[in-house]
């Protein structure tokens, strides 16, 4: 199981700020996860926006990065500052 975190406005879209998911074995990269989650939430491309960054275990990565044995994956819209 992998913990997925949805920050900022994404939690309104997904209805939760975090969840534990069994990511299918054929979802290998961050980009594939992005597309899979977008379909899962019927988000109509909202999760595909490149301004939404993905972090694996607290490190921001590119869409081509492999998920590997990630414990925590965060989807982060542009930060709003304090």
């Amino acid at each position, binding site marked *: 199981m992998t913990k997925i*975190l949805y*920050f900022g406005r994404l939690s309104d879209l997904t209805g939760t700020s975090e969840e534990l998911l069994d990511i299918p074995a054929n979802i290998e990269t961050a980009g594939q996860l992005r597309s899979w989650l977008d379909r899962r939430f019927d988000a109509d491309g909202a999760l595909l926006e490149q301004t939404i960054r993905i972090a694996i275990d607290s490190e921001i990565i590119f869409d081509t990065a492999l998920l590997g044995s990630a414990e925590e994956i965060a989807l*982060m*819209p542009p930060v709003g*500052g*304090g």
Partner: protein
Amino acid sequence: MLRVSPECIDASAELRAFEAEAVGAGGIVTFSGHVREVASLGDVKSLFLQAYSPMTENGIKTAIADANSRWSLQKTMVIHRVGSMHPGETIVFVATAAKHRRAAFEAADFLMDYLKTEAVFWKKEDTETSSHWIEPRDSDYSDAARWTTKETV
């Protein structure tokens, strides 16, 4: 010194503690940011601030290290609140201590620009009629860009 926490910030008490530790500084600058009562979409009922630890703290630590490399500072303090807060309450407190005032002023300004644009926070504003997430304004980005331009001059 850095603290990101849901606890209320008492800026006067923090300043006293900072002064006690910044012995020998010629100048101390502090900035307190407060929750506005009126925002673009109406009267603010509450503000919710979300952080992602330790990414949020690590980013602020890097900005503090950057400030220390640009200016000769004796001490810095950043306190940032997270969670739910109300108009008039303090969101952020920044203090800088230096031998001379210019370094203290500029470093405090620099840290605030970082905190307003690049710091890892998400902010939601609730008014009487709506609830919305706020993303940075163009003016926040141009404020922060001043420091990049300055470096190349």
